[in-house]
Structure formats: structure tokens, C-alpha cells
């Protein structure tokens, strides 16, 4: 068996018992990348030498008796997350060649734990997109069907994990950017509660919505990675000061899913959902019931407004977050006739069409005369959406739904209609708006393409969704299926 096929917890076992080393593991992953990367295109950049150096260092640490679940584990880091000393582009031309002088808080924690960074995974430019087609650097293909998108914006991370080009990866999720590609690529993706994981070093998209989270080969790995990055950070004023439980221990508690109350939000079985997706989800819900969960219908009545609310808020925040790219202190500069013209030319040249579209929309939503009608209104409806969730979680422990109403689409299929692209996020954006947590786990296939089950928990309910996902995984084998690639 090739080492690159291992999960994190399997690899950890082998490292612990001296059956392999981090260097061997890392070399194996790098070989795998050499084999499949030209087909998959998961990475914007691979730091081979650096990775091996980190692996050697991890082996040295282990030799001194050190041990922790991430020591020596090769991971991919989404290129929208800051890695000190390593180029970080957010998939944008405007950050080409940018080498940050600091680590994201999550990256610093992983570095501290002794993880090995393989490279920076592809992303839609500034994480704005659902297909990773909007990266300025490379095209990522779905390992299950190379003519299809891997989803996005963490498409690089999802494809890398699915194709065994990393044992696990970090992604960012503003409206579904971890869960949707996880669903499309048949891997596990978890979006933590807003504030559970520090945003310091996550290149901002929608500041009130962004979270960093893991993409993993199975639920246990997701739990390990979450444990490695969660916790309070004084550098992020929106980070929660709540203790971090041992998620691996927590998720294994209980007898099956006995005593767990699972809600099925009726509004999430939207019109136009692919029949194969619906079938897979219904079957998954039956499995949860078999495990002892009590399944009931719940209602989230303002669901239909989610996309409209989300795009007003996220573009408004993004329009401001992207103002710093002016060619003065870092990144691209395109000189114009005067200083103002240089600002315009730099941004015109450096940003791709989707980013410009969102900056335009957000600028409009915030401008005088429209603020109340769009931004403020959206924030008020956001309150109603949050209340929907609060009320539902008074009745149930977790909710389940599809992650996406469909499966991975063809590359180029939705390119010219932004609104259609936005509507894909319909079932994921709600969690970001409400600030709650969710996980996508593989639950079958529709027409040969993976389907993900979304398990939704209340604020700081990560242990609960991990438990449901873990128990489900124990009685299914979807996560063990591997794409053929090619």
C-alpha cells in the first residue's frame, strides 16, 4: 500500500510505531503529486524542498520523544491562507509574488504541532467562486471526472485530498467554500462556528462570514485537524474564548446515535434538486435513524432569502476588504499616467472579472442612497435567518440536508451566468449567515459523481456534528471509494 493513501490517523499510527517516517510519507505524497498533478491541478505552488525540510525536522522532534496527532503529517494549505515566507496569492494576479512576513494563526498552530506543508492549493480568486475556475493561476479538475469542476472556492484543497496529493488540507468557507467542494470531490469538509478558528491570516473575503476549516479523507481526520487549529486568538477580536474539547474523544462518545435528535429542514429540499442527490440524502437520513437517531421535520422559514441576503452582505464587505490592493505596499503595480490612474490600472489589471463584479456590486450596495435598501435590509433579514436557526436548535441537536442540490458540473458550464453560479450556494450560505457549524460527508453518488450530506450544528456544536458524521461513516463505505483519475 502506498503511504500517500493513508489517512492522518493511520499515518500517525505508523509514525508512532516507527513503521515509517515523515520524510518517507512526504516523499510518497510528492511522488503522487508528480504522477497526477498535471491532470488534477490542485496546487498553485508546491514547496518540495521546504516540505522535506519540515519533514526532517518533524522526524527529529519525534526522535526526542515528542508526539502529537499532526507531527510529521503532510498537508495542503489553501492559497488564501497566509504562510510566512511562502508565496501567497489568493489565486489573484494582484498578489503575484507576494511573500508574507508572518503566518496565519492556524498555520502557526500547525507549524507548532510539527505538520508538513506541501504547497498552496488552488482557489477561486480571493475565494470568490464555487468552481475554482476563477483562479488566475491554474485550472483544477475534479479527480472523479476531469471534465468537471472540483467545486470551490477550496477546490484545490478538496481535489488534493481526494487525489491523495495531501493527507489533509485547510480551506476557507465564506458561503460554502469548504463544504461544497468537499461534496463535489467526496471528501469530508468542516466549516467551524464563526469565531471557533482564528481568521488572522485568512485573506479576507466577507469578514463577518469567513472561517478556516479542514478538508479531510475521513471524519476522524477532520476532527484531528479542527483540534489543531481551533481556539481563542487575541489577534482576532471575533475569535471565541471557549475551551477546545478533544474532538476525537467527543465524537466517539455514545452508543450509535441513540438520544440524538436530528432535524430535516423541509425548505432545504429545494425545487430543482437533482433526483440522485435527493435519493442519496434520503438514504443517508434513514441510516441515521437506523443508528438510533430520532428524525423530525423542522422549518427554516426564511431560507428562500438566504442567497439575496448573502450576496448583499458578502459583496459589501468584500468591496472594502479588497481596497487595500492598490499597488503601493505589495503585489502588482500597473503604472498609469498619474497616481490615481495607477490605482485604477493596477486594480483593473490585477483583478479578474468575478472579483470586479463583486466589488462593483458591494460598492453599489454600500453607496449613499442604497445602503438602507440593500445592505441594512440584508442585515435585518440576516437577523431573521439567525432566529430561524435558534428556534430550530431549540427542537433538535443537529440538522441534516444536502450540501449542494446537485453534483459537480462541467468546466465552463456556468461561466457566463453569475446568478446561476451564486444559486449553487443556496444550502451552504445559511450557516455562514447564522454563524453556526456544518460538515459535509460523502454519502453516495448521483450519476457517478459524489454527493455530500451536510450535517448542521448550533454555535460551538462541532462535537455533535462530528459525532453524527463519524457514526454515519462507521456504517457506510462511501469515504473509502477513490477516484480513478484519468
Amino acid at each position, binding site marked *: 500500500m502506498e503511504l500517500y493513501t493513508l489517512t492522518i490517523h493511520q499515518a500517525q499510527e505508523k509514525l508512532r510505531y516507527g513503521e515509517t517516517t515523515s520524510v518517507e510519507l512526504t516523499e510518497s505524497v510528492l511522488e503522487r503529486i508528480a504522477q497526477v498533478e498535471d491532470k488534477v491541478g490542485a496546487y498553485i505552488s508546491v514547496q518540495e524542498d521546504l516540505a522535506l525540510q519540515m519533514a526532517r525536522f518533524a522526524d527529529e522532534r519525534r526522535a526526542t520523544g515528542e508526539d502529537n496527532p499532526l507531527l510529521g503529517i503532510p498537508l495542503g494549505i489553501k492559497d488564501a491562507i497566509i504562510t510566512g515566507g511562502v508565496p501567497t496569492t489568493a489565486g489573484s494576479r494582484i498578489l503575484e509574488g507576494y511573500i*508574507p512576513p508572518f503566518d496565519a494563526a492556524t498555520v502557526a498552530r500547525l507549524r507548532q504541532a510539527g505538520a508538513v506543508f506541501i504547497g498552496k492549493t488552488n482557489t477561486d480568486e480571493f475565494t470568490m467562486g464555487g468552481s475554482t475556475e476563477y483562479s488566475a493561476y491554474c485550472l483544477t479538475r475534479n479527480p472523479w471526472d476531469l471534465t468537471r469542476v472540483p467545486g470551490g472556492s477550496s477546490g484545490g484543497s478538496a481535489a488534493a485530498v481526494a487525489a491523495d496529493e495531501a493527507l489533509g488540507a485547510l480551506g476557507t468557507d465564506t458561503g460554502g467554500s469548504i463544504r461544497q467542494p468537499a461534496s463535489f470531490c467526496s471528501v469530508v469538509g468542516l466549516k467551524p462556528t464563526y469565531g471557533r478558528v482564528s481568521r488572522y491570516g485568512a485573506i479576507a473575503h466577507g469578514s463577518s462570514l469567513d472561517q478556516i476549516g479542514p478538508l479531510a479523507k475521513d471524519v476522524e481526520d477532520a476532527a484531528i485537524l479542527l483540534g489543531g487549529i481551533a481556539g481563542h486568538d487575541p489577534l482576532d477580536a471575533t475569535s471565541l474564548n471557549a475551551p477546545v474539547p478533544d474532538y476525537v474523544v467527543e465524537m466517539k462518545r455514545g452508543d450509535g446515535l441513540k438520544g440524538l435528535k436530528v432535524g430535516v429542514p423541509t425548505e432545504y429540499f429545494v425545487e430543482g434538486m437533482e433526483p440522485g442527490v435527493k435519493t442519496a440524502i434520503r438514504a443517508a437520513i434513514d441510516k441515521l435513524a437506523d443508528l438510533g437517531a430520532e428524525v423530525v421535520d423542522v422549518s427554516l422559514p426564511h431560507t428562500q432569502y438566504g442567497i439575496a441576503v448573502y450576496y448583499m452582505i458578502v459583496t459589501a464587505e468584500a468591496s472594502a476588504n479588497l481596497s487595500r490592493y492598490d499597488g503601493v505596499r505589495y503585489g502588482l503595480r500597473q503604472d498609469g499616467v498619474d497616481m*490615481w490612474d495607477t490605482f485604477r490600472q493596477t486594480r483593473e489589471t490585477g483583478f479578474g472579472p468575478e472579483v470586479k463584479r463583486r466589488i462593483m456590486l458591494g460598492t453599489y450596495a454600500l*453607496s449613499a442612497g442604497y445602503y438602507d435598501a440593500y445592505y441594512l435590509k440584508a442585515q435585518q433579514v440576516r437577523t431573521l435567518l439567525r432566529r430561524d436557526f435558534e428556534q430550530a436548535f431549540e427542537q433538535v441537536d443537529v440538522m441534516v440536508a444536502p450540501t449542494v442540490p446537485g453534483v459537480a458540473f462541467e468546466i465552463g458550464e456556468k461561466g457566463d451566468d453569475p446568478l446561476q453560479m451564486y444559486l449553487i450556494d443556496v444550502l451552504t450560505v445559511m450557516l455562514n449567515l447564522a454563524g453556526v457549524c456544518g460538515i459535509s460527508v460523502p454519502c453516495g453518488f448521483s450519476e457517478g459523481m459524489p454527493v455530500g450530506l451536510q450535517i448542521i450544528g448550533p454555535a460551538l456544536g462541532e462535537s455533535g456534528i462530528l459525532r453524527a458524521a463519524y457514526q454515519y461513516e462507521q456504517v457506510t463505505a462511501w469515504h473509502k471509494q477513490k477516484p480513478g483519475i484519468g
Partner: protein
Amino acid sequence: MKYQPIIGMEVHVELSTNSKMFCGCSADFFGVAPNTHVCPVCLGMPGTLPVINQKAVEYTIMTGLALNCQIQPHNVFARKNYFYPDLPKGYQISQYELPLCLNGYVDIETEESDTPKRIRVRRAHLEEDTGKLTHVNNHSLVDLNRAGVPLLEIVTEADIHSADEAYAYVTKLRQLVRYLGVSSGDMEKGAMRCEVNLSLTDPETGEWGTKVEVKNLNSFRSVRNAIAYEIERQTKVLSKGGTIDQVTMGWDENRAITFLQRTKEGDTGYRYFPEPDLPPLDLDPAWIEEIKTGLPELPDAKMARYTGDFELTQKEALVLVEDRSIAEYYESVVAVAGDAKGVTPKLVSNWVSGELFRLLGESGRNIADVEIKPARLVALIELVNANTINQPAAKKVFGVMFKSGRPPQEIVEELGLQQISDEDQLVSIARQVIADHPDPVEQFKAGKETVINFLVGQIMRVTRGKANPQLAEQALRELLQS
């Protein structure tokens, strides 16, 4: 003058915290090598986040209380969006709809009236400063040491009506922030910066003129001069039947003129919205109360106490109150004096604003470095009161105390400055003086009364200044009349 100036002011005060508003970089920027007090946060690097400096909030509340503002319990920071090379994030974190301080006032002294004039403060809010642009040859240089330094913006109502009032207002503001210790208030170093909104109203028609903004006022003098200049300029234009454009003017300190400045984006373009990176502040009333309790006594209250309890004149009180550390020194001396032996607050005031100020001025030293312990100044005044030394000798002693901090008694003995109050001794000296100066004595006897001063002076000369002048004169008169 025909037109009535209507002036509102915006003053930006740099708060003297250790660190910047949203990151741990040093907030010092004056005279610091460019771009050395910067970090990923204040450089606006991707992925960085702001965290509020608690001290800056505390300083703002202190200032708000001193400005008699209502401190707003619910506070939200907002992003003010505009592009400029000195603004790293492309937005400034400021406060918009929910500022920290609202509806206050400042009382200023004016020449025209004995009662102070009230200038209403509309709001005071906390924000971050921008960097600094320097123009060299054909390009500009951006230094971001100042970017992110906490900045307090204080906005008045249009209650100011002359250059002098504006001057008095900013002077008072500087005094307040210095009293509070929240800012150096140093305009020359950019710690206080003024913008003026000025329009001229025709008192006959009551019509308000067009508002003109004047920026770049970087010294107290320029505040006064720029306003005076702009009033004159607009008056000329209006008198000739011209109209005033709504523009932003700059002030050219060297040429002493205002000039038309290109404006940044209009107010409608700022697209304010709540800063999502910063949770709101819901200030604990107990904290505000604690800050209030900890406030130092402010100049207005001191003035009242000095002119009341201490029976100083307005003028005497004013010079002592001007600077908080002077006032505190003065009060510590008064406190030590207590009710003892006629060392009145007035006498102390004479010493502090007389000899002490003179020596501070000559030596260039600061009140904080003065080594004269309050009890020793009291002791000196007591020596005078007890006629142990006379006034000129006391000044000499004070000079030595200023240099060394030594006790006055010791200095008096060492220099042999004890006043000669022994009447027999003085009579014998007077006799000698009379014998030595027959002509003046004749003149005195002929009725030229003022010659007595000459003769007293001779006694002082003989005794090297130690004679008690009153007793010396008395001795002379007795001898001359007998």
C-alpha cells in the same frame, strides 16, 4: 466689520498611548526613521485584523468627560472607505453613527467679556490616523509609522465667531488634553491638527454664506492667521458683490495665505458601514464612573478654587492654572503651608509665578525637575515673615535652593544673610552714615523727604544688604529728628 464670521472646528488629537489603535506597534512617529514602527496589521497586509487598544478608548472617554460630553454606552466602529496612498487598507476605521462622545461644551475666555464664552462640542470620536506623504521631486514617499496611531476627532458646533475665539478654543483644548495626560497637544509635531469651517453671514439679511473649509493648520499661530486671512479674503469678495465657492483651502504658513486645495472624495462617497472585524463596545457604566472618579481637577475648577478659596486675582490664578504640573507644585506648597505663620496662598503664588518662573525661564528647566521641596519653600517664606532675612536676601537664597534644593536656613547661615534687626547695632551704623554724608543730611533737614531712601541705601551698603530696611529707616529718622 460688516459680516459676521461663523466658524466650526474639527480638531484631531493624537493620543499618547504606547501602542497604535489596532496593533502593538509603537505610536511614536515624530522623528522616527520611516517605516520602522510598522507591522503587517498597520501596513494593511492581507489577512491581518485590528484589535482595539483599551487605553485609547479610556483616553477618549476621559477627554469626552472633560469636554462635558455624554459618553455613549453603545459604540460601533465603522469603515470609512476611500483610496489614498497613505491609507493602507483603503478604508479608515473610524466611528460614524455611534461615536463615543456627544453633546459637550468648552468654556473659553474672551477679550470682549468677563464671563466665559461657551463653545458647544457636537461629537468626539475615536479613529486611526493615516500615514504621511512627503513630496520629493516628481514623486511622493509614503511613511506608515503614523498609520494606525489613535486619533481623537473633536467637532464643534459653529459657535466660534472670530480668529481670537478659535485661538482660545484650541488653546483650551490643548490645555485640557495636557491636563488629562492623553496627548502632548503639540501642534508643531502633528499631535494636534485643525480644520476650520468658515462662512460669513450678512447680519442685515441674516443670510448664511457659503462654507469654506481650511486645512493644514499646523500651529496655533496659523489657526489665528488663517482664519483672519480667510475672513478678510471673503469679506473683500463679498463687498465687491462676488460669491464664495464651496471649496477646501489649504494654509501656506510661509506665504501666510490660504490657497485652493484639490479635494478628496465627497462625503457621499465614503460608504460607511459597521466594521465586521470589531465587536461593538457596550461600555460598562461602572468603568465610565471609575474613569470619571480618576479624572484630575480640570483648569476651570482650579480657577474657581484659586480665585475663591485662595483669594488670588483672576490674572494670578490664570498663570498658575495654565500648566497642570505648575498648578500641582503650587498646590503642594500651599498644602504644606497649611494655616501656619502667615504663609498665605497669595505669598506662595508670588514666589511661584515670580522667582520660580523667572529661574525656570532662564535655566530652560522643567517644573518636574525642580528640586525645591514644598516644605522648604514654606520655610523660606517663614524666614521672611519672621524678619530673619529681608526680601533681596530671600531671592538670593531661593536662587541657591533652585540649584541645589538645600534647606533655606542652612543657606542663610552659610552666606551670613541673617537680617540685622538689632536696634542698637542699627543705631550705631546709622550714626556713622549720618556723619559720613553731611550734605544729604542737610537736604533732608531742609525738607527733602526722599533723601531718606538714599541714607537707608547707605546702611544697606554698609551691612551688605542684611539690615532690616524698616528698622534702619526708623533708626535714621529718630537720630535725624533728635
